[in-house]
């Protein structure tokens, strides 16, 4: 049973800044194209650096941890700019204009190996860099299908903003809110798809696992790891890091060959998996420190009752 009563920081914070920023940048990119949108980014980003108070505070707190020094305003600007850049590019990835970019794939053999049995695997990612480049790269290079599990109102909002760009994508998005959603996910997996799930944000009612991350304790959801255990499928990690300009580095790595656990032993094993994931997440976050796109306090404790 999931713990209840959790109000994760990112759900609580009505992140005024980000959705408006997202909307504005998508609008500019669609109207004017990538080059003019990028030319306008300094103005748009500077505006949001100045006026979005809560996300800016979260950005500073995060940057202080990852850079190991007090961040300057230039660091915060760079952080926002990286986020805004990936939003511009996301418009392109979603409309299939992938060839405009310099995307380098790393570790695809790990996924090939994991999928050697013929069925798909669980692909765990994060709000680090662009998950969209990862999806585009998987499709255009090795021709892997990616079905995405989405599990919150924010994701639905984002999906609505981007749905107009690529209606076919709706098929590849599985909303976790229905009784049969994970049965649908299992079907996609059996068809050979990568089942993408982002594991760095808690959602309402999720069981929270305390994990050491960038010198503090962050609370990650048990759900993605429990799901991987129930599905008994191979698990890979994937991160699409933005490197500036047109350049992305997409990293895949094998996480677990197969997770198969009796229910009684699952709790402890799932917690260990979440912690192992947090370690890898920290590794990739340090590789690309301005790619962390969680503009809320990721180290805020969930309610006492929810600690597991």
């Amino acid at each position, binding site marked *: *049973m*999931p713990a209840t009563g959790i109000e994760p920081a990112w759900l609580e914070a009505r992140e005024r800044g980000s959705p408006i920023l997202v909307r504005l940048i998508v609008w500019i990119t669609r109207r004017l194209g990538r080059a003019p949108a990028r030319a306008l980014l300094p103005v748009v980003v500077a505006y949001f650096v100045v006026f979005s108070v809560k996300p800016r505070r979260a950005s500073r707190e995060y940057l202080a941890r990852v850079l190991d020094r007090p961040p300057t305003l230039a660091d915060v600007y760079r952080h926002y700019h990286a986020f805004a850049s990936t939003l511009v590019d996301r418009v392109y990835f979603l409309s299939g204009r992938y060839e405009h970019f310099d995307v380098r794939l790393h570790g695809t053999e790990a996924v090939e190996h994991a999928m050697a049995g013929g069925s798909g695997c669980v692909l765990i990612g994060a709000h680090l860099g662009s998950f969209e480049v990862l999806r585009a790269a998987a499709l255009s290079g090795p021709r892997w299908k990616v079905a995405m599990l989405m599990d919150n109102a924010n994701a639905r909002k984002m999906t609505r903003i981007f749905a107009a760009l690529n209606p076919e994508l709706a098929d590849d998005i599985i909303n*976790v*809110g*229905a*009784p*049969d*959603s*994970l*049965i*649908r*996910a*299992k*079907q996609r997996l059996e068809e050979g798809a990568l089942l993408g799930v982002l594991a760095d944000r808690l959602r309402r*009612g999720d069981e929270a696992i305390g994990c050491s991350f960038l010198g503090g304790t962050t609370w990650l959801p048990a*759900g993605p790891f*429990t*799901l991987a255990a*129930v*599905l008994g499928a191979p698990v890979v990690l994937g991160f699409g890091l933005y490197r500036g300009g047109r350049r992305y580095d997409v990293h895949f790595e094998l996480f677990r060959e197969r997770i198969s656990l009796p*229910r*009684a032993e699952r709790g402890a094993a799932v917690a260990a998996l979440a912690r192992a994931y947090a370690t890898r997440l920290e590794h990739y976050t340090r590789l690309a420190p301005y790619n962390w796109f969680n503009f809320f306090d990721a180290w805020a404790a969930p309610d006492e009752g929810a600690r597991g």
Partner: protein
Amino acid sequence: MAAQKPLEAEISALMVEVLNLEVPAGDIDPEAPLYGEGLGLDSIDMLEISLAIAKRYGVELRADDDASRQVFASLRNLARHVEHTRAR
């Protein structure tokens, strides 16, 4: 609460066993919603039930359309679906 039919009793026992539920199998109302407010199961629980049913009865539960979604509405619907599919 409506009374459980034999197959419903069997499936509710299976559910209690697979999900480690704290309610006695006989107390599960066959007409109450399984998911969310009713019995309080989440989508991972539903997936586990579908795997257990496939194993025990050889009936694969699909999630294709609204009709298939009805199957997961209650223990009664679930048992009815298993019964019909097995009989085919």
